[in-house]
């Protein structure tokens, strides 16, 4: 048998690695991180100005005191708690899409999960501002932490407010971990195509990702296990938030339906916000190939389902208030619809239950201008839902002599507007830095299709 040829001779006969055309998915989805239209800078500028105003208002309130808010007897949970619950709710769609739909192997989530996860992280970061504002004395925040102090006094673990601290902190941490793990392979794609400072940033964040066998195996299993952990978490977070109310004896709050009612409402509002974000992103950055009518139809179905659950919960609340024959309860619900806050209640019912029923019409489920407008209305409706729950109940408790009216102050309204700017600022920065669609998940489908000749 002749000896094998020397390696150098073989090398000469082999072709060297030659540069090849980049993947179309990489080119399309990374495009938004490269060039940006002037509208982007205008939007970012407005958001940053709003954030400056937000922190100015926070500084003003911190210096002057909580008196600048509209709190007055008997309403001491006002706009800050309403907005806190609103933003936590918005954050629910992301984890639902990432974790629960992942476990159900719903392939349509691949195109929308990145955006929804980013939305979750930024919504929770926004929500986290509000308990601090509501505290008034922000510097006393550490009282909520179970830390050893010189008095040997610990926090009350039987209080739902403390459960909330743990639930929100866990949700924020797990959402960030989930978001980052999903991003690592895509950051590596960006690293391989970036230059200068961006390359250094992506190299650090990509953590040496190369898509080797052990890396993908650990990555896939991590996503699976995190989905398993995040599924009960996403259902528990808004349940715990709802117990902030349901564990008390305030009329309109003390109800066992609160946990599922809040979770359904959160998913409903979250999907509406996903629509509000994805529709302009798709249009501005030309991602029509990746975000198709199929995706919007599926999201519309979720909205229709959760809207119906919300409608059922509203009816069940009114039915129980009547059926219980407990006067403060039935009075509270009567006043919700026909008392001084009737406007917020009817907004809630119209925007959250009546308008979404239009989605029974198939044509409207893929009509993007309609879906965008519907998303805006749903978000307004969901904000009013929390307004109704908190304000109407607190302002009309058991003793009629203690009834009062709550009107949000200009500072509170400015902080509410600022929260949208804060959220938008982070989202706009995200658009500039990271791919808005999970490229590797799209590529998985593309390669699968290549191999199986368009079976997908």
């Amino acid at each position, binding site marked *: 048998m002749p*000896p*094998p040829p020397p*390696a*150098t001779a*073989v*090398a000469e006969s*082999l*072709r*060297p*690695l*030659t540069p*090849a055309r*980049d*993947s179309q*998915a*990489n080119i399309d989805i990374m495009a938004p991180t490269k060039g940006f239209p002037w509208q982007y800078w205008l939007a970012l500028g407005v958001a940053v100005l709003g954030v400056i105003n937000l922190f100015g208002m926070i500084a003003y309130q911190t210096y002057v005191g909580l008196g600048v808010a509209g709190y007055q007897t008997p309403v001491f949970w006002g706009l800050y708690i309403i907005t806190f619950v609103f933003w936590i709710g918005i954050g629910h769609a992301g984890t639902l899409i990432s974790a629960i739909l992942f476990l159900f192997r719903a392939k349509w989530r691949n195109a929308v999960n990145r955006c929804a996860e980013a939305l979750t992280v930024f919504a929770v970061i926004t929500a986290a501002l509000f308990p601090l504002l509501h505290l008034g004395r922000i510097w006393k925040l550490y009282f909520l932490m*179970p830390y050893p102090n010189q008095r040997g006094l*610990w*926090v*009350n*673990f*039987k209080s739902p407010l403390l*459960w909330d601290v*743990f*639930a929100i*902190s*866990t949700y924020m941490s*797990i959402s960030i*971990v989930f978001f980052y793990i999903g991003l*690592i*392979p895509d950051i*590596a794609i960006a690293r*391989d195509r970036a230059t200068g400072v961006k390359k250094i940033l992506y*190299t650090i964040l990509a*953590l*040496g*990702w*190369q*898509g*080797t*066998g*052990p890396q993908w*195996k*650990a*990555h*896939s*299993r*991590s996503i699976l*296990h*995190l989905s398993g*952990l*995040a599924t009960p*978490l996403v259902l*528990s977070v808004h349940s715990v938030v709802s117990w902030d109310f349901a564990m008390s004896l305030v009329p309109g709050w003390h109800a066992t339906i609160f946990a599922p009612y809040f979770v359904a409402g959160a998913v409903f509002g979250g999907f509406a916000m996903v629509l509000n974000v994805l529709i302009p992103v798709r249009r501005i950055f030309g991602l029509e190939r990746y975000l198709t009518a199929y995706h919007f139809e599926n999201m519309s179905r979720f909205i229709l389902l959760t809207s119906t659950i919300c409608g059922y919960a509203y009816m069940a609340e009114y039915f129980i208030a009547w059926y219980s024959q407990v006067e403060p309860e039935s009075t509270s619900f009567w006043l919700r619809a026909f008392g001084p806050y009737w406007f917020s209640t009817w907004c809630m019912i119209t925007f959250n239950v009546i308008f979404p029923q239009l989605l029974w019409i198939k044509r409207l489920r893929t009509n993007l201008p309609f879906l965008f407008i519907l998303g805006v209305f749903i978000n307004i409706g969901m904000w009013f839902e929390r307004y109704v729950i908190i304000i109407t109940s607190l302002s009309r408790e058991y003793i009629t002599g203690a009834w009062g009216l709550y009107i949000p102050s200009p500072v509170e309204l400015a902080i509410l507007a600022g929260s949208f700017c804060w959220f938008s600022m982070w989202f706009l920065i995200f658009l500039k830095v990271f791919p808005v669609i999970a490229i*590797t*998940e799209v*590529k*998985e489908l593309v*390669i699968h299709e*290549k191999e199986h000749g368009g079976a997908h």
Partner: protein
Amino acid sequence: MPTLVSVFELPSNTASAVRKLRERGFDDLTTYSPAPFPELEEAEDPKPSKVRIFTLVGGLTGVVLGFLLQIWMSWEWPIKIAGKGYASIPPYSIVGFELTILLGGFFTFFGLLILGGLYPRPVDKHYDARFSAEDFGVVVRCDERDVAEVEQLMRSESAKEVSLVEA
């Protein structure tokens, strides 16, 4: 040591090449894939990922720590609240649950970092940007006398390119 870098277009061919390489005893290899493909992961290493151990340990640590934290603190400063015992287990299940998820999630993340060798660092010498496009790569380190065999095996599995990058 001679190192051959092969480029493939499809995951099934890559997985088949890796399986054959391993059958012939070429274990010193690295694969690069633009997306996760279970057949490729299994061809390279059929054992299940150890991430699950990290998740389990994290979750158990969380639940034990969560309950111990609350029970100890309640006994450390005993106050009767709402007529319940100093350490009342049902309400403590909430913080216990949250810490189970929190530590389970963190440990899973650390498991990924450890098992995937992830830390801020430059890429391997033979890594190519095409492997983050749509191509698959297999890097094999072998003895000089085996170069021709490996090259032939790769080509028989429809490798687009085979290059000897280190002689």
